[in-house]
C-alpha cells in the first residue's frame, strides 16, 4: 500500500524562542529550524511499514516556504521514496494545511496517511483530524501502536487516563504520539542519496486550494515570567514554609 507522510518545518525544539520587540510574532530570523519531532515519528513509522513489506511506497509532503525542502530532503534520507512540496510563503494554519493535504490525498489515493499529532510551534493538534474529516476517512489520533489487519487498521491510542484501541476501515489517517517509535538518524550515505530522489514542487494556486490563515494574529507576548524563589536548607524548613508561608499544606 501507498503511505503518505506529512512533515512540517518548525523551530528546533532546543531553541529558546524570542518574541519580536513589536509583539507582532515570534522572531524566527537566524533561528535553527528542523523537522517537527512528531513528524519525525510519522516518517519513521512509514519507513518501518515499508521495511516490513506492508507499504510499497512512502511519499513525504510538506507545505511551506522554499526552505521546507530541507525537511523533505531529511524525510528522503530517512527512507521516503519521493517528496512533494506545496510551496507558499503564506502563514498557513491547520485548516489551510488540511485543505492542501486533502487535495494531495485525492490525487495520490494513499491507503494510509500519517501525520504528527501536533506541531511544536503552533501547538494546535488539529491538522490530522481536519484532514480525516475533509477526506471522509476515519482517524486514529495520538497513536502509540498501529497494525494493518487486512482492509482495516488497528490503532492503540494514548487517551486521558490510559490507552484505547480502535479499528479503522482503510484508507485511514493516523496521527503519532511519542511512544509510537523512536526515530532513527539519517546516515551520511543516505543523505547523499536523498539528493537524487524526486522532489516535486507545486503551489496552492495551481492545486486550486486556499491555504491562507483565517485567524488574525493580533499580538504575541512573552508569558508572565515566574520569579524564582528561595533555596531552603532542609526538609524541616521546606515543610515550615509550605505550612506557614505558602499555606498550601496544613
Amino acid at each position, binding site marked *: 500500500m501507498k503511505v503518505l507522510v506529512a512533515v512540517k518545518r518548525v523551530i528546533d*525544539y532546543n531553541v529558546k524562542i524570542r518574541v519580536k520587540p513589536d509583539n507582532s510574532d515570534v522572531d524566527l530570523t537566524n533561528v535553527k529550524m528542523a523537522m517537527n519531532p512528531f513528524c519525525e515519528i510519522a516518517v519513521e513509522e512509514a519507513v518501518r511499514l515499508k521495511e516490513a513489506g506492508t507499504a510499497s511506497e512512502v511519499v513525504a509532503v510538506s507545505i511551506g516556504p522554499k526552505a521546507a525542502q530541507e525537511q523533505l530532503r531529511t524525510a528522503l534520507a530517512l527512507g521516503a521514496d519521493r517528496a512533494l512540496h506545496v510551496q507558499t510563503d503564506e502563514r498557513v494554519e491547520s485548516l489551510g494545511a488540511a485543505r492542501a493535504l486533502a487535495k494531495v490525498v485525492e490525487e495520490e489515493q494513499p491507503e494510509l496517511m500519517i501525520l504528527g499529532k501536533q506541531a511544536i510551534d503552533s501547538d494546535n493538534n488539529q491538522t490530522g483530524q481536519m484532514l480525516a474529516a475533509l477526506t471522509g476517512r*476515519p*482517524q486514529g489520533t495520538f497513536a502509540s501502536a498501529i497494525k494493518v489487519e487486512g482492509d482495516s487498521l488497528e490503532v492503540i491510542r494514548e487517551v*486521558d487516563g*490510559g490507552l484505547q484501541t480502535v*479499528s479503522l476501515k482503510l484508507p485511514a489517517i493516523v496521527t503519532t504520539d511519542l511512544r509510537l517509535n523512536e526515530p532513527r538518524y539519517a546516515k551520511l550515505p543516505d543523505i547523499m542519496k536523498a539528493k537524487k530522489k524526486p522532489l516535486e514542487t507545486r503551489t496552492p494556486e495551481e492545486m486550486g486550494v486556499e491555504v491562507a490563515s483565517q485567524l488574525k494574529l493580533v499580538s*504575541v*507576548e512573552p508569558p508572565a515570567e515566574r520569579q524564582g*524563589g528561595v533555596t531552603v536548607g532542609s526538609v524541616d524548613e521546606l515543610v515550615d514554609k509550605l505550612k506557614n508561608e505558602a499555606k498550601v499544606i496544613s
Partner: protein
Amino acid sequence: MSILVLAEHHDGHLAEGTAHVVAAARQIAEHSGADIDVLVAGEGVAAIAEAAAGLEGVARVRVADHAVYGHQLAEPLGDLLVALADDYSHVLAAGSTTGKNALPRLAALKGTQQISEIIAVVSADTFKRPVYAGNAIATVQSADALKVITVRPTAFDAVAEGGSASVEAVDTVVDNDLSSFIDEKLAQSDRPELGSAKVVVSGGRGMGNGENFKLLDGVADKLGAAIGASRAAVDAGFVPNDMQVGQTGKIVAPDLYIAVGISGAIQHMAGMKDSKIIVAINKDEEAPIFQVADYGLVGDLFELVPELEKKL
C-alpha cells in the same frame, strides 16, 4: 445565537473539566449575551445530563443518547456536532483527548479555523492561547461565523453547582461504518485525576527507574496528591505516558507541584509552570527547574523524599 459546550465524561460521570469549559463559555456570553447549552453525547448518559444541568450558567442540556456515540469516537461525534452547529455562534470543548479528537472535524467541515486551548477570553471573537510550549502567548481574532474552540480547563475557575437547566433529548443519529471501538485500558488509581488534582508530585529521570517511583507514593498519600512524571521519565520507560506532564502530555496547574529529580526541560515547564507553588528537589543546583521553583531543595532525593514523607 447560543454557545454550545461539549460535555466531557468518563465512566458514567461528568468530568470536572466541563465546569471549567462552561466558565469560559460564560465569559464569552458576557460579551455576546448568548445562552449556554451543554451537549452530552454517549450511551446511557442520563445521569451525566442531570449533573450537567446542575452547572451554574447552563440554560439547556441536550442529550444525544445512542449506541453510535457509545465510546465518543471522533467520527460520529464530529458528525453530530456538524448537525447541531447551525444553532450556535461558538462550540467549545475541553482540550482533552476527547475534545482534541472531535472538534477539529467540526471545524474542518464548517470551514472554520479552530482555536486550540484558549487560556483567556478577550471578547466574543478574540482569545489568548499559548504557542511554542507556552513560551509565547498569542492573541488571535476569528472572523469565522462559527467559532470552534478548545479550552485549557486549568485556566478558568470552574462554575459552581446549583443551576437547574432544562434537559432535552437530541434525536439526531448519525452513521458510523468507518471506525469501531475494540477496548480500553484505563489506569486504575485511587488518586485524584492528574489534570484536576490540588497537589501533584512528579518524578523525572533522576528517579533512576520505575521501581523508585514508589518512593513518591508516601508523599502523595499524605498530601492527597496525583503522581506525574516528566517526558524524560516516560521516554526512559519508568512510567506510562498518561502520567506525563508537559507540552506533549498533560497541562496541570495545582496549588502545589513538587518536582522530584526533574531538571526542568522547556517542554516540561510548559505543563506545570502555572502551578501556584512549585517545589523542586534535585541534586543539581544548576538545574533550570530551580529558576521557576518557589522553594528549592538541593540534595539526594533518595534521602530527602523519605524524610519529607515522615515530616508531613
